[in-house]
């Protein structure tokens, strides 16, 4: 039986309720728009934001003189020649206004002597990263934005557990979206004058990752199928010191980053020797190694047989006194003790873990998705600002800045525009998918298929790549795609995870293909993309790669990147 379809009209539809989506919703509402904010998870809980541990990069200059231009220079340098200049400029120039606005909304940035205090993160030339203690930045940001959204309740309608399956495209423009309500199974059609994608990145494609289970690159797939363009998909950032062992519960795997900011710490190989200088990057006891270099150094050490017992490196804080640890991390020390970890007496094991995606939907500097009028992008789903490697601290910053800009642009578009009529053609295929009495679910084990895709990605499209492994990965992805088929398993009412995972996999396989194709095509090494068969960074590869979808096939083009004027 096909459940009845619910239809909703709105001025602005925002898909994804992490920081980028919530900021976009607030800004669009301030611009006079009626906003519908949807998330496939609960509002403000499911994205990457809530998991952010500490740093937000911003040239506030309260403690140490600073200028957005210096932040920009560091961002460009970290991006290894591939940052989209206007996006990077927007990110750095608008960051102070957003950070101060969040401060007024009561987020609680850590202060010293009355000033918002900042820490130095790797790749930044001075203390530039603000935070909320103790490792509470993400939850504090989410809570603050949710509260601010509640103050706009007349203009912002919220709908959690709403899974968007496809954007609706009519007359070459994005006119809304089609999805279904996860808790009831009801198909939902949304007509919108402007749509903001704020769905985050693709880290769920990897076995070990630091983000939420709902970050399977769905925004990339939605944009591709709507006629949009993806750029620089090969650049997946691995966070070098993700927690590996002993097993921890109730702790974020990227929790060691704040420890390194505050306490330094020593990164050691399986023989308890410092090793990063072997790879041309001496740490001198301070935490300054950028993420791409540290990831490479750890993986090479493991490959040479000098890894820690579980296949990573040791991270030691044994030089710190119990008082220093308590002072820096307060209650977190108790949570570690509950996991039988005493940092004064033992090192922990760490290893690279999928963390962030530099690539994404191609956009101009008003966050309008190239090739799809009416569609805007915000946060991690937007590609290009961070080039081939992202600086610590720029992820939340881009969520705020790009979210605010996307909300502003969406509000500008909605004014004076009549409600779009969704033609049957614009929505038919997606409605058929979400309301179909699909195939018998039989032996389709969607959870196992996701695990299999994660293995392919981790084993063959991790930080260190070869052409041979990438080709093998593409074969494996094609096999999965064939097994997935054209239709989801039948609906069976509320919270059908097997069906949700089918829709997730439909997106994940095309995104995985895009990453593999771009990685195979880039015959050089740069930033987060390291090819063992092409180890040099080549000037002729200072190029973006753009991917579009034609029928089933991905088309890859490689135009030169703009030359940078700093």
């Amino acid at each position, binding site marked *: 039986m096909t459940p009845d379809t619910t239809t909703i009209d709105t001025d602005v539809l925002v898909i994804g309720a992490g920081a980028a989506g919530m900021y976009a919703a607030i800004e669009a509402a301030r611009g006079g728009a009626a906003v519908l904010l*949807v998330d496939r*998870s*609960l*509002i403000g*809980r*499911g*994205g990457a934001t*809530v*998991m952010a541990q500490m740093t937000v990069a911003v040239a506030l200059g309260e403690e140490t003189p600073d200028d957005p231009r210096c932040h920009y220079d560091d961002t460009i340098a970290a991006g290894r020649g591939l940052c989209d200049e206007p996006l990077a400029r927007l990110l750095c120039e608008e960051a102070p206004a957003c950070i101060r606005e969040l401060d007024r909304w009561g987020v609680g940035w850590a202060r010293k002597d009355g000033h918002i205090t900042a820490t130095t993160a790797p790749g930044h030339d001075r203390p530039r990263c603000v935070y909320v203690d103790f490792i509470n930045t*993400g*939850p504090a940001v989410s809570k603050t934005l949710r509260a601010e959204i*509640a103050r706009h*309740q007349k203009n912002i309608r*919220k*709908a*959690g*557990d*709403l899974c968007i399956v496809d954007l609706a495209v009519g007359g070459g423009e994005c006119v809304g979206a089609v999805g279904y*309500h996860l*808790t009831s199974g009801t198909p*939902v059609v949304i007509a919108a004058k402007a749509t903001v994608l704020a769905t985050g990145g693709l880290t769920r494609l990897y076995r070990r990752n630091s983000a*939420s*289970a*709902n970050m399977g690159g769905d925004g990339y797939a939605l944009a591709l199928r709507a006629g949009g363009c993806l750029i620089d998909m090969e650049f997946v950032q691995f966070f070098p010191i993700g927690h590996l062992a*002993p*097993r*921890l*519960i*109730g*702790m*974020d*795997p990227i929790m060691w980053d704040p420890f390194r900011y505050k306490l330094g710490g020593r990164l050691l190989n399986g023989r308890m020797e410092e090793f990063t200088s072997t790879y041309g990057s001496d740490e001198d006891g301070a935490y300054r190694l950028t993420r791409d270099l540290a990831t490479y150094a750890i993986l090479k050490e493991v490959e040479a047989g000098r890894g820690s017992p579980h296949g990573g490196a040791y991270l030691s804080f044994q030089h710190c006194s119990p008082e220093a640890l308590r002072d820096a991390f307060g209650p977190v020390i108790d949570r570690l003790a509950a*996991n039988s970890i005493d940092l004064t007496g033992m090192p922990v094991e760490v290893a690279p873990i999928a963390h962030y995606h530099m690539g994404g939907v191609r956009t101009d500097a008003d966050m309008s998705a190239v090739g799809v009028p009416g569609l805007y992008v915000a946060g991690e789903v937007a590609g290009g600002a961070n080039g081939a490697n992202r600086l610590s601290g720029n992820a939340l910053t881009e969520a705020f800045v790009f979210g605010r800009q996307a909300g502003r642009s969406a509000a500008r578009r909605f004014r004076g525009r009549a409600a779009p009529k969704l033609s049957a053609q614009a929505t038919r295929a997606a409605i058929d998918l979400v309301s179909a009495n699909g195939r018998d*679910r039989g032996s*389709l*084990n*969607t*959870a*196992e298929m*996701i*695990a299999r895709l994660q293995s392919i990605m981790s084993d063959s499209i991790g930080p260190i790549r070869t052409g041979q492994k990438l080709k093998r990965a593409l074969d494996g992805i094609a096999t999965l795609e064939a097994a997935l088929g054209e239709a989801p398993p039948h609906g069976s*009412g*509320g*919270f*059908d*995870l*097997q069906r949700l*995972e089918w829709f997730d996999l439909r997106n994940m396989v095309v995104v995985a293909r895009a990453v593999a194709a771009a990685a195979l095509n880039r015959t050089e090494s740069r930033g987060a993309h390291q090819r063992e068969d092409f180890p040099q960074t080549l000037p002729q590869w200072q190029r973006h790669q753009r991917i579009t979808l034609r029928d089933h096939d991905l088309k890859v083009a490689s135009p030169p990147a703009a030359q940078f004027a700093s």
Partner: protein
Amino acid sequence: MSQDSQRIATLKIWRGSARDAGRWESHRVPFEPGQSVLDGLRWLRIHHDPTIAIRFSCINANACKECMIQVDGETVYACTARLEAREMTLTPLPNKKLVRDLVTEIAPPSERFK
């Protein structure tokens, strides 16, 4: 007790979409010290039954606060409740509207789709 059975956690899980039409299922999960109940449920979905419904986003960080269920009658987060090598009884929250299996409606009313 054989060595083997000591290394198994048995999850007795309430399944169903209506309180008065549920059933119990018991599943065996290989036990490794340091795992959470959520780790056990995720293992089960991959290896035995992908239809088991559980709500979670952040997996391990206890940041999303979505995985609230009852374990042996006590309300916990599945991601911070430790898996143990014994039978553990998992039920949906009793005071929230049931959606399916271990999933209940926990969002504030203003954040729900209506």
